[in-house]
């Protein structure tokens, strides 16, 4: 019976407003209606069990539609590969689905397509993945085929060379875009060359070119084992169905591997802000990144950083977007990202800005980075930001893919799988003082990495004139030119 009287009152207000002569200035405007009583939201229970071979299985039930996702997450991401074999984890991940037993890659693709299943295998910095989403009726068969590609891939020689060519093409396409150039340069500048995160997870042309089929076979043999993997099952399954389907698909997988030590991403020492420029002639926009390395989800002030990020650039109504887009019209959008990684990730502002405003956009973005460290965040601004994170959370997990994505983050970051049970309450407890303390201790506005990829014939001189820091010009491969 919420608000019957409220509705009547508001009707009166709206009618009154509508009766005013069109265009006449009104002394008073109508205020937004208040929120009704909050309806409870509980993150669905996360059930966990283990197969006899050591494979950890996590089930989250969701029965609204007959859709199920099965995502295997394996600790065989690019962070574990040697520098000289950069790109090996990603290549192996892609090659899983290109042959198993007597089935060719084309056979596997046909079989998965016949199920109407979305299937892909890949690896990124954090992990290797085999992901299958399908209607419930065909899910058990699709997951079983997916498991065969994970446990017993055949890595046909022809497919190794073909997929290597695709990886090279991917690198070239990424480096044809200002955003790809800027993002590779940023991590290269921010981390020591020994840090896995200083390299692109998919490798570079020289390292990809040197990878062999033996490298792939060896990587799979030493890294792929049930003890190093988690199978997420999300969707329209009962616990009994989940156990039986998981057992059928993965029960006979027997590989073992030795334990792994935690990954470190050492930060490159620097004093003062570095400004790195990369030329891409003819660009009508520049991609800019401003940030610094060194953030983990396991940091004690993780949620304070989440709130800080939301205020600075984690939404439309955030400082950098309101400044660069809404106030100045430099861009279609600007934001910040807390890019968490095992071993330490990075915090950064990024945007694509029009060429003739590149230097001004940099000054504004660096200014916002500084302001959040020097001035306390006003209480209403922080409340709005935190409330957005808390209240929008149920929206983000309406789909099996949304749920699986959230759970995947916990697994690769090393957080407990019941993390979201109290996530909203703990975020709500973040205070302006917490954010101020996080900003003061973690952000280094005088020691930033600033990267700009664009048309240097137009932007280099204006950027130098702004004196943001020591300017270096790099080639697209990360070598200093001057």
């Amino acid at each position: 019976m919420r608000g019957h009287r409220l509705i009547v009152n508001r009707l009166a207000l709206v009618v009154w407003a509508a009766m005013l002569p069109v265009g006449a200035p009104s002394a008073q405007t109508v205020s937004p209606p208040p929120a009704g009583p909050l309806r409870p939201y509980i993150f669905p229970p996360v059930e966990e069990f283990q197969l006899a071979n050591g494979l950890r299985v996590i089930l989250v039930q969701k029965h609204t539609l007959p859709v199920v996702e099965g995502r295997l997450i394996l600790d065989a991401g690019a962070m574990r590969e040697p520098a000289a074999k950069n790109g090996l984890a990603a290549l192996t991940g892609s090659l899983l689905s290109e042959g198993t037993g007597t089935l060719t890659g084309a056979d596997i693709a046909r079989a998965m397509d016949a199920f109407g299943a979305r299937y892909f295998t890949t690896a990124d910095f954090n992990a290797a993945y085999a992901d299958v989403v399908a209607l419930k009726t065909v899910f058990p068969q699709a997951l079983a085929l997916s498991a065969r590609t994970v446990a017993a891939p055949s890595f046909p020689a022809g497919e190794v060379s073909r997929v290597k060519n695709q990886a090279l093409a991917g690198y070239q396409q990424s480096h044809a875009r200002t955003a790809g150039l800027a993002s590779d340069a940023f991590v290269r500048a921010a981390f020591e060359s020994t840090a896995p995160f200083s390299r692109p997870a998919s490798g570079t042309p020289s390292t990809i070119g040197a990878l062999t089929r033996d490298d792939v076979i060896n990587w799979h043999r030493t890294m792929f084992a049930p003890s190093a993997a988690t199978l997420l099952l999300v969707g329209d399954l009962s616990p009994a169905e989940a156990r039986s389907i998981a057992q059928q698909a993965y029960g006979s997988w027997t590989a073992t591997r030795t334990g792994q030590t935690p990954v470190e991403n050492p930060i490159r020492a620097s004093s003062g802000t570095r400004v790195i420029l990369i030329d891409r002639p003819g660009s009508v926009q520049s991609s800019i990144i401003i940030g610094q390395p060194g953030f983990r989800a396991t940091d004690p002030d993780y949620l304070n950083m989440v709130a800080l990020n939301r205020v600075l650039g984690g939404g439309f109504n955030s400082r950098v977007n309101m400044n660069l887009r809404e106030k100045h019209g430099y861009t279609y959008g600007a934001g910040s990202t807390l890019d968490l990684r095992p071993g330490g990730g990075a915090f950064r502002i990024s945007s694509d800005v029009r060429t003739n405003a590149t230097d001004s956009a940099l000054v504004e973005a660096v200014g916002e980075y500084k302001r959040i460290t020097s001035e306390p965040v006003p209480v209403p601004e922080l409340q709005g930001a935190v409330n957005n994170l808390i209240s929008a959370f149920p929206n983000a997990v309406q789909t099996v893919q949304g749920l699986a994505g959230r759970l995947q983050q916990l697994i690769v970051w090393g957080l407990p799988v019941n993390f979201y049970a109290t996530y909203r309450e703990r975020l709500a407890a973040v205070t302006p003082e917490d954010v101020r303390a996080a900003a003061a201790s973690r952000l280094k506005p005088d020691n930033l990495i600033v990267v700009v990829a664009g048309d240097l014939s137009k932007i280099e001189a204006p950027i130098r004139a702004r004196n943001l820091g020591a300017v270096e010009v790099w080639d697209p491969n990360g070598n200093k030119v001057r």
Partner: protein
Amino acid sequence: MRLRYVAVSLMFVAAGTSDGQAARRSAQSGKSPEVRIDYTKETLPNGLTVLYHVDHSTPVAAVLLWYNVGSKMEQPGKTGFAHLFEHMMFKGSKNVADGQHLALLEAAGARTGPDMSGTTSWDRTNYFEQVPSNQLELALWLESDRMGTLTEALTKEKLDNVREVVKNERRQTVDNQPYGSWLEKSEEALFPEPHPYHHSIIGSMSDLSAASLEDVRSFFKTYYAPNNAVLVVAGDIDVPQTKAMVRSYFGPIPRGPAPPRLAGTSLPATVGYENRVVVQDPLAPAPQIFVAYRVPPVKDPRAPVVRILANVIGGGNSSRLDEALVRRQQIATSVTGFNLGLADGGDMLVFFATGKAGSNPDSLERALLAELAGTSSFTQSELERARAADRFSFVDGLQTTGGFGGRADRLAEGWTFFRDPNHVNTVLRQIDRVTLDDLNALARERLVPTNRVILIYVPAKKTATQTSSTRVP
């Protein structure tokens, strides 16, 4: 994939069986599952159509509006206006200050992008927000305020900002991207002037520069009236209570004049000639070939056949182009195929293949055209694979209440394009009914050289794009 090109959006950003929700009855392999989206419909005295869909599985409510206006309604010299106007809808109205629409909804619990945005397509403009269900009234109030009073808060300063932002959007999505002009060039060739799909949604820089406040007012008066829109309220709602709120907020907005009828959308089945366009693209690292055909539009009964044809040839990982060009010949590093989903007169079915860096664009073009020439004798198993993919995509998209492509969006689409909100509940049956004859017949009729444009993107050393085009009858 298919959604990538459907619309131009406000923002770039990095988505049971209780009463009325998507109820499941039975599901057998090889046949579509029983999925039903229940709704109730009412029409307010001012002509606003309202659809209510109840789903209590998550405490989330979605508000979504489709205005029956898209870039196809734009006049010459005013290209890009429907989209520019969409951006103006976020710059405040009588009771909502500039920036407050998104600020209030973000603070209430909507993420700009997946939950809340506006998008403009050729055929319609939509606005949506997905909020915790206790914030439903705020969302309704904000939508009603801008539907009723947008022009009372217009200023030149707001228009200037929006114009700059949209120009940046064009730079980011078209001008600064390798192959960024493919869609504009395909539309130009497949839909000759004066067809309304001839020009792009985002429009030309010079038309954007020329847009005036008077244009904004007149566009609002012509198209943004309750009788030219459908409102969907979906999710964790109480229908009688929601109806009362909708009537109180939207009821007082006056009906507008009937919008002008769109004329001149009908088209011959085929273009009648082949267009071949070579683009010297300084941003491209490798050659890319696009081949686009004119096909039946979304409002045609053959629309499901079009989607399945796209999938059989270039959609799935086992499509013809994947197997031939990527796996066997290895002349392409990637291929894809999809249709845009245009509503009136004709749709565009496009395939593209990317070559290796340094490879010869002519051989890639020959290989792609050779594959496309052989596409009129599909097998039953090819059809079944594509059907399974189409069926899955549809069900998968229904997982979200609101947002782009969710249940509310599907209901609004049914009303706007078919005057039938129940259209969503007929899609799976339509997919089930497609036969091999349908598929082969459509391919024979439409996948012919005189019904296509071929775009050849060649990596170029120069810093300015150059285009040459030829027409073969």
